[in-house]
């Protein structure tokens, strides 16, 4: 009944709840907690928890057999975890419908060899339950460089072309989360640049990306955050700045007065090799330390030949973490 006071009350409560929910930030694109998986006697994944925010690009790094692909497959319901919980785009992953807005390029990329590239895309659009106009599908193939092979059978494609097709499949159904498992393993250097551009364009459109890659440079260029897996566990995770922490600057200087040397030492720890000086910068540096240092050195009569920002590479950091892990456990 319209005049029923309890009905009106519950309506208001529902509206208030809806507004509260609408005002909340969207749930993360990926959230998983306590994932475990054992294959026979091999513990592949041990208590892995990770999160990918909306529009965030997260890199998954680690040596072979670290459990990266297993984690990805558990996120997508392809492998059943022994324990743990997965939420995709705010919904529990146990419901297949959760994956409607998820695109996936598997590490093992194979598509029906008896279909053409455009038919494979049409199939995936249909299975995703979306309607994507033909032109948009064509644009998607063009994006990965397969515009002129749209009508050709996949069976005749090279590995690199199949991986490009896989990328198009992952992108075609307007995903909000894209999971790329080794997306450049079969690509030439040009293809790698294409993938990097695609990931950056996804990021600019607020699409979340989970990127598993051996190519550390690739991860370093595009990822906001990195999760490092080692022997099934999360060995480290954080933003690149957090993981890489300390920054350095290398300077080539001559005519250094003791005062100028003192100025260098005041900035941070100094290492000298002939006329090259490596100065450690504090992590809290807001970007003024280097210009201020150069200005003061010049004022103190030093001749500045070169100034190079230097930073511990992700590769060095990754190797450090992995070696430390094997040092303590083995």
């Amino acid at each position: 009944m319209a005049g029923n006071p309890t009905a009106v009350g519950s309506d208001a409560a529902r509206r208030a709840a809806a507004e509260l929910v609408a005002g909340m930030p969207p749930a993360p694109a990926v959230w998983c907690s306590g994932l475990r998986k054992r294959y026979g006697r091999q513990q592949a994944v041990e208590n892995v928890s990770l999160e990918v925010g909306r529009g965030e690009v997260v890199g998954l790094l680690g040596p072979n057999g670290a459990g990266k692909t297993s984690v990805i497959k558990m996120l997508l319901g392809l492998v059943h975890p022994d324990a743990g919980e997965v939420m995709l785009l705010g919904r529990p992953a146990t419901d297949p419908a959760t994956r409607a807005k998820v695109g996936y390029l598997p590490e093992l990329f194979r598509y029906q060899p008896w279909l053409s590239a455009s038919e494979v895309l049409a199939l995936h659009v249909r299975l995703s339950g979306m309607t994507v106009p033909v032109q948009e599908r064509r644009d998607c193939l063009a994006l990965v460089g397969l515009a002129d092979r749209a009508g050709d059978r996949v069976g005749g494609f090279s590995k690199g072309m199949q991986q490009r097709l896989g990328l198009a499949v992952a992108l075609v159904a307007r995903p909000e989360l894209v999971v790329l498992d080794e997306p450049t393993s079969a690509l030439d250097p040009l293809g790698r640049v294409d993938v990097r551009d695609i990931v950056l364009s996804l990021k600019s459109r607020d699409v979340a990306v989970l990127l598993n890659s051996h190519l550390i440079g690739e991860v370093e260029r595009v990822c906001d955050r990195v999760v490092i897996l080692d022997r099934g566990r999360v060995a480290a995770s954080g933003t690149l700045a957090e993981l890489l922490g300390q920054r350095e600057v290398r300077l080539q200087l001559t005519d250094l007065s003791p005062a100028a040397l003192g100025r260098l030492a005041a900035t941070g720890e100094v290492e000298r090799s002939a006329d090259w000086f490596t100065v450690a910068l504090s992590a809290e540096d807001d970007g003024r330390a280097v210009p201020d240092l150069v200005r003061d050195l010049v004022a103190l009569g030093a001749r500045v030949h070169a100034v190079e920002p230097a930073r511990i590479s992700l590769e060095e950091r990754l190797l450090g973490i992995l070696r430390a892990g094997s040092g303590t456990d083995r």
Partner: protein
Amino acid sequence: MTTARTVATIAALTLREAVRRRVVLAVAVLTVVLLILSGWGFSRVAAESGGTLTSGEARLTASIMLNLVMFGFSLIAALGTAFLAGPTLSGETESGIALAVLARPIRRSAVLLGKWLGLIGFGSGFVVLAGLAQCIVVRQTVDYWPPQPAVALAFLVGQTIVLLTLALLLSTAVSPMASGVVAVGLFGATWIAGVVGAIGGSLGNAAVARVGTISRMLLPTDGLWRGAMRAFQDPTALIEMGGTDAEAFPFLSAAPLTATYLLWAALWVMMIWALAAASFLRKDL
């Protein structure tokens, strides 16, 4: 994505695979060859026996030959669907095709149902078309028309469904090659067990006869095949052959199928399908 749409999409995809992979073409060529050969054979029988056979003997000969050729067709259908059903699940899992497909918002049971229906469409389409064409060939050459062609073809379709469901179950557990080989091997073994059982029956040896009965329960292909033969053959053919002694003859069938047996066959298919679904749902890709 609604489940019905997923099922329809996957079923259509399975049929398209059969066409694109030239399975349909290969089967069609085989069928035409078999039809032409049998047409020639039937016309030779009619010509060479010209007037020496009684009408009963002629019907008996036609019945036996029709059953023989139909056995050939059921073998093609069995081999075709078993070797299609095997690769379709385990092959796609092995190659990685399944990874991209199953990461879509679809249920694995819907994928399995779609594959199953697509394979049924292929198998039953073949059996009905080839079987009907064979009946017409026989009518044109020796003027024999089976008493219950629709029932016979329905049993042949049933036999195909039984075998492909088994192949589907096997393909969720073992490699594509193994699943095809095991399914076809079991099909052949059941047929032989059926013949052995029939010989036992005609000799009055209950223990040997039981071999056929038990194998027919374990895998209903042979039972359905015998039902189909009975519907293809002339009712007087058995009497012509010598009554129950004719039971031992592999291309004539003595007893009609009971409703209970048909119910069992349907239940068997449902159970095997459910097992296949359970196995496929639990599988880590």
